[in-house]
């Protein structure tokens, strides 16, 4: 399919057209070579490999179980993350969870302590 057609057709039609192209006859149909776009474009990235490797560690799996998430779910979550997002996890950047988690800061804790002292005096 010509590249120019992609912009003209709606993407559903384009995909249907794409998959209906006549199969090509190969000199050696047994031979298969796949293309890995990420490997070609991201040759510097190691964080994904490191995290994937860490998932084989029993201690890591045990910690994940304590957090209430199964290994399979973790793998899917990681697969859908960018390298930058994985790096944030590795570096513990932006790891505050949003929810109804009540965070009592140190200042607030000190203030509560002072109030208690004032009340019981």
């Amino acid at each position: 399919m010509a590249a120019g057609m992609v912009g003209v057709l709606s993407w559903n039609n384009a995909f249907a057209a794409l998959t209906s192209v006549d199969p090509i006859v190969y000199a050696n149909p047994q031979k298969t070579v796949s293309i890995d776009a990420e490997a070609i474009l991201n040759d510097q990235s190691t964080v994904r490999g490191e995290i994937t490797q860490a998932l084989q560690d029993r201690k890591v799996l045990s910690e994940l179980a304590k957090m209430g998430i199964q290994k399979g779910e973790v793998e899917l979550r990681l697969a859908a993350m960018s390298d930058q997002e994985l790096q944030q996890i590795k570096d513990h950047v932006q790891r505050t969870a949003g929810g109804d988690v009540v965070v009592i800061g140190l200042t607030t804790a000190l203030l509560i302590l002072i109030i208690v002292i004032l009340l019981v005096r």
Partner: protein
Amino acid sequence: MKGFCFERRAVLILWLVFSPACASLNYPKISTTDEDFRGKPDHVQNVVPFVEQAPNLCGPTALLMVSQPLRPELTLDQIRDLTFTPAAAGSYPQDMLSATRRLHLAPYSVKSVTEILSALAYGSPVVIFHRTGFLWKDLWHYSVLTGYDRLKEELIMHIGPYENRHVDWSQVVGSWTEGGKWAFIVEPPRKLPEFARFEDALANDFAFLRLGYIQEAYALSSEMIARWPNRYEPDVVMAQIFSEINQPREALRSLKRAHQKQPENVALKNEILKYSRAYQ
């Protein structure tokens, strides 16, 4: 004298109780310029479905609200399974982005006030991570921005139990900045927002490939090639897509197109040689 002491102590206690709440909401006033509003109306309020938040579930609820117009069949339970971490009693920002892609949708980051206004004027609600406080409580929270009012200097948002609540934008933007300016919009793969960053689009494309969402990757790559005709990366992604659907001739064409745009790329040249040899 004893009465005075009690009175003074009561005032002190009241001040101590309320001061943290005031402090947590006391962000400096933000200033906007005419440039921020160029080509945008003074008042925007998008129609965004409202879902009242259940305890701890502000993340999945926010994602549900922005995804439902694109995928009406989605339920809160489905999204909770993709985003929620029980031990954290909440959802991590990275899991929110990951979940969006797993829902076959594409998230795009929003990193400035101008971009927030642009997204809202463009018709896209914005999921925003911000801090909200009351008395001794201090919460990090996901809300959905649905609009803004320039004259009143307010953002309009679905937050917790409140639908289209008007909030002073300095407070929202202040806490959003404190939290690392983390916000995003959601689009279908076939639609690239005007202000989309190339890096965001490519990250979505890679995620679709990893998840095996070939149609989504194809749709997004096509849009990227049209938007950024001089970038070679979408052609490489397209080459993988053609390769995976057993169209080696098209895959090779895509690789060669990428190489034309990036002739000094040795990895690309090697890939073309390897692929050509395999399918001669």
